[in-house]
């Protein structure tokens, strides 16, 4: 009996299949027509840097906690109930007013646990993007791939209008593109010889990639990648040159930069140039002030209301822009885009040794609020909950194990079967019992049809974090 190994058999059949399906042109197809034919949406990550206090928006607390010296609150107003279409409720401040017109378009996730063992900005941003506090592959570029080694569906994985200070190892097709950078790039592209596949110099250069790719080693494989990339570069360069640019501004004039960023993102989405965009939303600064949501000082914490109010207003403008931008298939950009709004963590209730009306706030990775909505995501829901809702509530053993002084609010255990907060009071912290950002990322993966093998796990070699099935339409 003659035996073939499975590996060699699969190799030969895979090669046969590859021979049939090899692309004849560049590595990807793009353009509005191609994108309209597929159901994969765009992805917009609205990042709010420096750790925004979620209790100033959709995870508010009654003033009784402030009166009892438990939680600082410089708004000085009682929050109101915000009820989801699924019957779950949360408390929301008046700062959410700008988002009310869109309440059916996004869902609120509260009590989202970030990197529970790390309280640094970078570590939690790493955890948000890669599932690992030390960084790695971000989930955002994966949304542009058909499979782990598949083609990119758009030439760029993402554009970023701000900087993500995270350790990302797969952002080689993510383009930093603030309005200033976009204008500079377009100007440069217009000033040099255009990349043209029928240009003799282009051909001379491309010849050398082809000539060097035939070998067996690492250099030849690199030359092959250069040939592929150079083959697709003319089309990408043309798309970038064709970007709709907003009017030029003084580089230090940041007042219109936000709207300019949105305009660029919308332009690139419509042209099919990028799959994803990362838009940074910073609070407006008062005159002679530097607005930072990292409110360690009492002075900064007192400005939380104004700062977070301006952030909420900008998020509302993003929703409005997406809904008002039509696509060629008769829908709006909102219908074609999954939107995620998140900061890297929330804030502590207070600091030790300070009076409740003279305290700043520190980092709190044990809870976070996330807004999510758009294409294929159910809006209008409230999911998850955080603890310390009343003066009398005592923290669980699991909470105190991570926060002995009870300075933080922590997400409650979450029942993924019922999609509701669990009533259990665990004595020990186990990540799988809580709503973690890993579940948010995996839900986005599922929406984009990314196979489970890529999903974030909650521990090394552990199972994937559960998908938040209630969010998927």
């Amino acid at each position, binding site marked *: *009996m*003659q*035996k*073939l190994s*499975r*590996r060699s*058999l699969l*190799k*030969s059949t*895979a*090669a*046969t299949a*590859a021979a049939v399906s090899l692309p004849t042109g560049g*590595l990807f197809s793009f353009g509005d027509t191609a994108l309209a034919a597929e159901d994969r949406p765009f992805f917009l990550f609205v990042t709010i840097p420096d750790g925004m206090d979620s209790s100033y928006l959709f995870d508010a607390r009654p003033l009784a906690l402030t009166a009892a010296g438990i939680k600082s609150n410089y708004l000085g107003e009682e929050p109101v109930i915000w009820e989801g279409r699924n019957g779950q409720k949360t408390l929301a401040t008046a700062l959410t007013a700008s988002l009310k017109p869109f309440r059916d378009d996004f869902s609120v996730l509260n009590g989202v646990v970030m990197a529970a063992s790390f309280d640094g900005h970078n570590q939690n941003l790493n955890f948000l993007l890669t599932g690992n506090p*030390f*960084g790695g592959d971000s989930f955002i570029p994966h949304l542009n791939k058909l499979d*782990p*080694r598949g083609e990119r569906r758009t030439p760029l994985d993402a554009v970023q209008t*701000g*900087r993500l200070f995270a350790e990302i*190892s797969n*952002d*080689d*097709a993510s*383009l*930093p593109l*603030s309005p*200033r*950078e976009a204008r500079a*790039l377009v100007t*440069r*592209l217009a*000033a*040099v*010889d255009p*990349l043209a596949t029928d240009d*003799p*110099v282009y*051909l*001379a*250069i491309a*010849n*050398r990639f082809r*000539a*060097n790719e035939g070998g067996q*080693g*690492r*250099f030849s*494989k*690199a*030359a*092959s*990648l*250069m040939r*592929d*990339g*150079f083959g*697709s*570069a003319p089309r*990408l360069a043309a798309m970038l040159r064709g970007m709709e640019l907003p009017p030029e501004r003084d580089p230090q004039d940041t007042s219109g930069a936000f709207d300019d960023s949105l305009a660029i993102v919308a332009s690139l989405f419509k042209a099919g140039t990028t799959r994803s965009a990362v838009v940074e939303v910073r609070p407006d600064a008062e005159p002679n002030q530097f607005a930072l949501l990292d409110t360690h000082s009492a002075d900064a914490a007192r400005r939380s209301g104004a700062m977070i109010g301006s952030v909420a207003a900008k998020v509302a403008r993003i929703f409005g822009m997406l809904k008002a931008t039509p696509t060629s298939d008769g829908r709006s950009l909102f219908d074609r885009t999954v939107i995620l709004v998140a900061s890297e963590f929330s804030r502590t209730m207070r600091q030790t040794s300070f009076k409740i009306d003279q305290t700043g706030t520190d980092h709190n990775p044990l809870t976070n609020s996330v807004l999510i909505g758009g294409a294929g995501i159910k809006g209008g829901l409230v999911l998850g909950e955080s603890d310390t809702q009343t003066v009398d509530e005592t923290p669980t053993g699991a909470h105190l194990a991570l926060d002995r002084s009870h300075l933080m609010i922590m997400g409650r255990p979450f029942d993924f079967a019922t999609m509701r907060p669990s009533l259990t009071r665990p004595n020990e912290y186990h990540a799988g019992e809580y709503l973690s950002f890993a579940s948010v990322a995996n839900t986005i993966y599922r929406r984009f049809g990314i196979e489970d093998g890529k999903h974030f796990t909650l521990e090394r070699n552990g199972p994937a974090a559960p998908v938040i099935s209630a969010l998927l339409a």
Partner: protein
Amino acid sequence: MKTLIYATTVSCAFAAGCGRKQPKTPTNEAPPEPVDVVVEVVPEEIPLANVEADGPNEGIANFRGFAVVQDLLRSRLVAVDAADAFDLGRYLDSPNLFRIEGLPALLGVQTGDGVTSGFRNGKANALSMALWHLTTQGVAEEAAAMACAPETVEAPEPELIVIGGMVFGERPAPEPVVYADGLLDELRTLCAGDTAALGAVWDRVISADAPQEERDAYLADFSGGGVAAAVTAAGGVRAARSALAAAMMNPHFLIRK
């Protein structure tokens, strides 16, 4: 492509080997009865993902990286006593202040600290190739213009101070780049439509980084009946710029071996 050839060869080999297997026998013995061959697939403990040997980051050389290319060009193209003025980031509107970030970081950069330290963005894609094109064209255009049309060269302008993507002000205009006299002479020769300096341009950029056949191919492409010969023959700034840029875009220059 190599995988396809390999797999096809393997398939043909198996095809050739399949079927009746007749052992060699001495001529004075009757051959054995033919035996039906049954092919049985034996499962192996190898994940399907390893069917293809080439992963996205397995066994593929990286770019040299932005910093190394900058240093090479600085040492090979720029006048010795003016080397500090050369900042490759300027050709992507991202002058290096404290570290490589922004567009230059997409061309290969060592980044991170401790366990997160690594070389990033070292593999070519459409974006990095477009950016290398921009960068090399910027350098080549400036050098060619200085050699052949210095009256068209504009003085450097004040630069924005950009850190972490945020603008923190402006700094005075940098000193203009001073290219090596030898390079300028070679480019002037090319501007005159004379291909005699092609080899010198190649040697200046590439030095000993590429094999002889690569140099021969470059000369063939840009002279005689080569694909870009008409560009060189026409002379002018374009001829000088194209020859210099093409040398800088050669894989033996950009890829770390």
